[in-house]
């Protein structure tokens, strides 16, 4: 099968699957109006065909007509309208929806051509949503076909997304893609078109794409030259930076967005009711519940006049009964509701409907404004259709509303536990005041008005967010979702992670600590220690004399290392690559990793103002973690990094800990004042004036002149991490002065906190550290660490603390407690993975489901023990090989299970056949 046919097959599969899961197709009429589908179709067709001559003798063709949203509108203007789509099933649905219309033809084209349509027969070809969601190869094929069927005088109009290249990876083939405008124009011209116009005249889509730096443009094309090959056209469309990052979950299906857009437009025009209807349609008919329709709703809601039916503040017998149960079962929630003051109720009201009261908050109805019970039942049945939700032992529902959906969920068979989080105590009180919820409250497993801690819920949890709450409470719901995803990530995802260390420098240990923490989290990680290659890197300097020669040699050396690493990753693939600062990862290498779908991460534990290589490298990383905030985050983001987050360094409690030292060790390593670190300018300048103290300086790059000749220990050799833990432990006062190459003394606006701060604290060592703007959020100055702002200040504090060992001990102990609690590498890695898994969950889960282990596990479902063995071997981080499966089968050490014997059988067959050509006797003797 050609690659095009294969692709078409895959696309059709996805379209069909979507058809299966898009639960409701719109009724043709909603509340007396033509369905929003046709309304938005009419609007969009007018936009997409503007300026194109219509007429009864003209033919219009839509590429990717799906359910025919725009075909009716087209048929009102063109004599013959042809809708082409991939799937017979979809075409059938479109036929059902459109009904009989002599002008409309529906064609199924399963091979990404427009084969049934003859050459030069169409006056107008358009595509509104389809082409922009197809892979480049498909777009290329269809562009070429469009060129073929268009009359020489014809016009093609496409809605495409332009901005930076966004080619989202993931399990699906069909998802929105954005192209660089010049790429697309080049492709169009290769396909034989002249690009007449690219305009922003088409409606923008609900802001969702704008957030990704992408805009929808109408492209007008006329046939001009003969078309090039499909491959050439596709090549032009290929993203220059593969897998540019964007959260795939963030962009829902285009049809929904278009409809939401339509609602927004209606709201703008003051058609509030119709806008409401359209939005309800989106809510109930769209599978994706995370659509950001906040803006539109706000605009719509701002114009709606609330009808107050029940006073949400009033006391009632219903409220009393509900509150009794609430106090008994959920005392925290009860306290929150009971503590509400009078003024806090204004944002909430309740309206009456035929099916019971509906609660409104901040102008939005938390239930269906007319049919709360019925809508809740629809919402619940749809939510439970999704297997992961239906099967979850715990469901956490964000949003209490009027409680209808909770009652519905409780009434649905199953042993799931139901937890509810209602961020607004006021809204909860309104519900409690208006309905008898005693039974509901008695059956819930939990109800809180504070963000719930998933840790308290045993077993896996699924989060269900009411659409209204997703809008109103996005500030709390989003972190909750992220928390759940990252928690699930830590327990459900097993991506293969590699931590790539630098050739040299202070970041090497940070790489080790990172790797150790990943392992403690049970992640499948391996550290790639490059420090051994440093010697060779340095030797190049001896061989290559000229600066240019050295640069070439160094580049070749790094290239050699990365080529070798790529080979290593061929053999032992990874999913996530965490590069420590200064790791030898070239742009080419990182792009190759990304091409393979590997998530690239940089932990940039350096001062971004001092080291600027991020300017060139940031765009090759999906995530950059920094030790600085504000300007740093913005600058690195602007340099093209996918996501940038603040993540300071930390301590490794397994290494950085209090030690019982012998008197000998104390004498060797200890002093009244100690400092460990390189001899940067400001340190030299400041410490020279402390020479009258018993003061030991450890580390390299110090001058040999006075007074350092006596202060600096052991010929200024490099000190290992184990050694400096001894120094920290053995010294009364440890100085910690952040380095500056330019300034004297304490850097006035120094921001980031160095690793030594955390390490000293974790050792239970007393430190005097210079003031840093980011230190305050890590340690409380004066209680957990003592800071100084200048040389005189430092002198005063040394004088104060040198003779007060008890005070020092109290502060050091508090510092240690804080470091252990908040600043361990475990904590940091948890945060790092939380971010990565939260945003790449789908991608990583898809990779995992495609991984050989997953296939094996799935495939071995009929063989419990085999399956368990696969899972165990995967958890050990092994490759999906037979050797991995039998590596813990030890013959002669207890009885072998049947499964083990069968695996050993295979193992021996394999071993046996590796020695072909041996005779009978040879085998016997082997």
């Amino acid at each position, binding site marked *: 099968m050609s690659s095009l046919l294969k692709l078409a097959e895959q696309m059709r599969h996805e379209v069909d699957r979507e058809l299966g899961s898009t639960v409701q197709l719109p009724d043709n009429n909603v509340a007396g109006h033509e369905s929003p589908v046709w309304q938005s179709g009419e609007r969009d067709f007018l936009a997409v065909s503007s300026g194109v001559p219509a007429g009864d003798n003209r033919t219009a063709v839509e590429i990717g007509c799906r359910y025919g949203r725009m075909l009716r509108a087209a048929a009102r203007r063109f004599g013959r309208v042809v809708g082409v789509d991939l799937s017979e099933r979809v075409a059938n649905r479109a036929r059902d929806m459109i009904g009989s219309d002599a002008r409309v033809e529906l064609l199924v084209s399963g091979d990404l051509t427009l084969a049934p349509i003859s050459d030069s027969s169409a006056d107008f070809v358009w595509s509104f949503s389809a082409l922009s969601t197809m892979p480049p190869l498909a777009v290329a094929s269809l562009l070429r076909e469009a060129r073929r069927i268009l009359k020489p005088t014809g016009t093609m109009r496409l809605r495409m997304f332009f901005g930076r290249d966004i080619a989202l990876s993931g399990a699906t083939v069909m998802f929105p893609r954005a192209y660089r405008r010049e790429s697309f124009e080049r492709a169009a011209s290769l396909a034989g078109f002249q690009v007449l116009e690219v305009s922003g005249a088409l409606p923008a889509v609900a802001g969702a794409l704008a957030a990704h730096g992408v805009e929808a443009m109408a492209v007008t094309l006329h046939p001009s030259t003969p078309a090039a090959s499909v491959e050439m056209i596709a090549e032009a469309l290929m993203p220059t930076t593969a897998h540019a990052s964007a959260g795939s979950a963030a962009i829902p299906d285009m049809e929904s967005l278009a409809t939401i857009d339509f609602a927004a437009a209606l709201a703008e025009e003051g058609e509030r009711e119709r806008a409401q209807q359209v939005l309800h349609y989106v809510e109930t008919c769209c599978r994706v519940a995370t659509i950001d329709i906040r803006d539109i709703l706000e605009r719509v809601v701002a114009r709606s006049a609330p009808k107050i039916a029940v006073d949400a503040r009033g006391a009632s017998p219903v409220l009393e009964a509900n509150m009794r149960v609430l106090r008994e079962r959920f005392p925290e929630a009860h306290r929150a509701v009971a503590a509400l003051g009078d003024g806090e109720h204004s944002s909430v009201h309740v309206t009456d409907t035929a099916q019971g009261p509906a609660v409104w908050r901040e102008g939005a109805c938390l239930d269906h404004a007319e049919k709360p019970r019925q809508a809740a039942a629809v919402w619940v049945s749809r939510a439970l259709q999704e297997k992961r939700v239906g099967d979850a032992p715990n469901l956490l529902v964000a949003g209490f509303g009027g409680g209808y959906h909770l009652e519905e969920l409780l009434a649905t068979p199953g042993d799931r536990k139901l937890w509810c989080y209602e961020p607004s105590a006021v809204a909860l009180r309104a519900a409690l005041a208006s309905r008898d919820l005693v039974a509901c409250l008695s059956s819930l497993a939990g109800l809180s008005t504070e963000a719930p801690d998933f840790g308290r819920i045993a077993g896996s949890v699924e989060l269900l967010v009411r659409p209204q709450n997703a809008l109103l409470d996005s500030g709390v719901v989003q972190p909750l979702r992220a928390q759940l995803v990252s928690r699930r990530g830590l327990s459900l995802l097993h991506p293969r992670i590699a931590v790539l260390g630098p050739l040299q420098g202070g970041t090497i240990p940070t790489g080790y600590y990172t790797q150790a923490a990943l392992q403690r989290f049970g992640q499948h990680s391996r550290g790639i220690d490059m420090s051994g290659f440093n010697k060779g890197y340095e030797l190049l300097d001896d061989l290559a004399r000229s600066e240019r020669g050295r640069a070439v040699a160094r580049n070749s050396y790094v290239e050699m290392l990365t080529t070798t690493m790529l080979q290593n990753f061929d053999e032992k693939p990874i999913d996530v690559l965490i590069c420590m600062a200064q790791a030898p990862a070239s742009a080419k290498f990182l792009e190759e990793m990304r091409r393979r779908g590997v998530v690239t991460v940089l932990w940039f534990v350096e001062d971004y103002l001092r080291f600027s290589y991020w300017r060139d490298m940031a765009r090759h990383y999906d995530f950059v973690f920094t030790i600085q905030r504000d300007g740093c985050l913005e600058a690195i983001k602007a340099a093209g990094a996918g996501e940038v987050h603040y993540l300071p360094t930390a301590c490794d409690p397994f290494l950085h800990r209090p030690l019982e030292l012998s008197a000998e060790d104390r004498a060797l390593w200890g002093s009244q004042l100690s400092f460990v670190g390189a001899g940067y300018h400001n340190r030299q300048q400041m410490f020279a004036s402390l020479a009258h103290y018993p003061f030991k300086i450890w580390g390299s790059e110090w001058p040999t002149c006075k007074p350092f000749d006596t202060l600096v220990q052991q010929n200024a050799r490099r000190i290992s991490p184990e050694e400096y833990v001894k120094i920290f432990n053995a010294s009364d006062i440890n100085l910690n002065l952040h380095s500056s190459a330019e300034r004297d003394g304490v850097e006035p606006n120094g921001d980031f906190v160095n690793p030594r701060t955390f390490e000293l604290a974790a050792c239970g060592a007393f430190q005097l550290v210079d003031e840093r703007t980011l230190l305050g959020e890590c340690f409380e100055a004066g209680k957990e660490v003592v800071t100084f702002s200048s040389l005189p200040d430092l002198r005063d504090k040394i004088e104060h603390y040198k003779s007060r060992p008890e005070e020092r001990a109290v502060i050091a102990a508090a510092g240690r407690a804080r470091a252990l609690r908040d600043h361990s590498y475990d904590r940091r890695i948890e945060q790092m993975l939380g971010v990565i898994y939260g945003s790449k969950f789908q991608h990583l889960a898809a990779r995992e489901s495609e991984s*050989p*282990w997953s*296939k*094996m596990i*799935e*495939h*071995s479902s*009929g*063989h419990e023990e*085999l399956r368990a063995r696969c899972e165990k071997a995967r958890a050990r981080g092994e*490759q*999906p*090989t*037979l050797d991995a*499966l039998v590596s813990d*089968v030890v*013959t*002669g*050490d*207890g*009885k*072998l299970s*049947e499964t*083990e*014997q*069968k*695996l*050993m*059988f*295979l193992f*021996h*067959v*394999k*071993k*046996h*056949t590796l020695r072909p*050509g*041996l*005779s*009978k*006797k*040879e*085998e*016997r*003797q*082997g």
Partner: protein
Amino acid sequence: MMKKRYPHKKKVLLVNITRLGDMLQATPTIAGLKEENPGCHITVLVEKQFVDVCHVIPNIDEVIGIDLAFVCRSLDREGDGIVDAYEYVDELVRRLREEKFDYCLNMSSSAYTALLLNLVGIERNGGWTSDEQGYRVIESQWAQLFATSVFHQNRQYNSLNLVDVFRCSADVESHPRKLLINVEPESEAHCEALLGAAQFTNTGPLIAVQAGASQAKRQWSPARFVEMIKILVRDHNARVVLTGAPKEAVIVDPIVAGCASPNVISVVGRTSVPQLAAMLRKADILITGDTGPMHMAVAVGTPVVSMFLASAYGFETGPYSEGNLVLQPVIGCGPCNPNKACGRPDCHDTVSPQLVAHLVAARLAGDVREVSPAVADPRLVVVYRSTFDEHGFCDLVPLNTAQPDAMTRHRRAYRKLWLEDLGGFSIPQPKPAAAGRLAVVDEGLRGLDEIAACAKAGQDLIGRLEVCIRDTSITAAELGEVSQRLTDLDSKIEALGFQYGPLESLSRMFIFAKENLKGTDPLSLASQMNRAYQDLERRCVRFGSYYLGE
């Protein structure tokens, strides 16, 4: 009558996975099983590619193919391929269990067939299997002898053909004294057509030549074949047909070209296995190395002249029928280790084209009972004639020498020992005077007294061990000490075997016996161990006396 472990068998599984030669060598056993166990059903498990071939093997009721190629392909795919392979095994085990075999005989010593048989769970067996801990189990003493005899350092002291050892491990006494294969009329017609198309000008004997061998070092050079064939064609009016598998064309084509005679043709790659059998039957004689076609010729009753070069050893796998000729080079390094390549196969020089041509001509003229040392120098090569002894065991009788070589006495002594000790056959005892010479140090028996003494000491220690087991007041330390001394003793026996090479078969049999103790009851284990020491002591004495009696 031969000693038998399981006299009655109803449903037998014969595992013979990989080789055609092995399958042919099993035919006397299969025939014997049928004869001695009337109504017995015999299933063979072979690699899938041999399933068809098995249909020309008589007495087989059912053939089950195991698709090792599929298993390997699946395993090579890794990932879910492993699960496919696993499911294949799972299904195979299920299928074999359903058959409810009451006896199995595993000819191959591979670990995987041993595991497979343990999985199938057939209680009675005569060959390799494994226990539930994955350890190799060889219960039958004949099979243990099989394993002992093929240990490289023991091979040259063995004179029992493996066909017989295997047969005895299946308790088979009566057998057809030849290998068996059915020749189908269609195959014969095919061969007639092949021969009919040839432009032979000679009218003499049809001589088949199998030039290819399984290993380069066992491959007599094409130049020698050419020279030998030329003699036969020129001097004996012979028509020569070269046989072989398609991949052997690279060896055979140059020979045919070198002979440049209408009387020399190649049918390489033009015969299936049954057709090759038919072709060999048509031939008057086969000239070959130790190959599958050699066994096939034996099975169709065509005499063979076979060269046992390099690692090949005539006593072990020689032609299993009466009256074949076997050439075994006399060279310090032969038979060599099959797992080592050889860069300078000097053993080939011991066999000249003239000698082979001479022997072929002699064998064509009739049974050969004598070869003149002038023709075949016994210092270079021994020419044997295959025959059967009075107990029906295949043997080789030297034709060109009256002097036994250095190994002969050991071979003869071992032969008698095992036939008597394992088979229960009555063996003429050496004269008492000879037996009394055991005390005299004979170079060939050095170390025997030491091994016998160890065997005796072992029995004493077992006596103490049994006391310790029965007496609950004995401390663990004492028990441990006895056990430690037994372990040390066993190590010593093994070491003595290595030190005194000719005696290694004795110690190896002892080690196999100890490896295959059954059960977990201490007293039963002690009693089995005692028997192993008794066996060893007795065998030492008997071996010494047979050796001296030679």
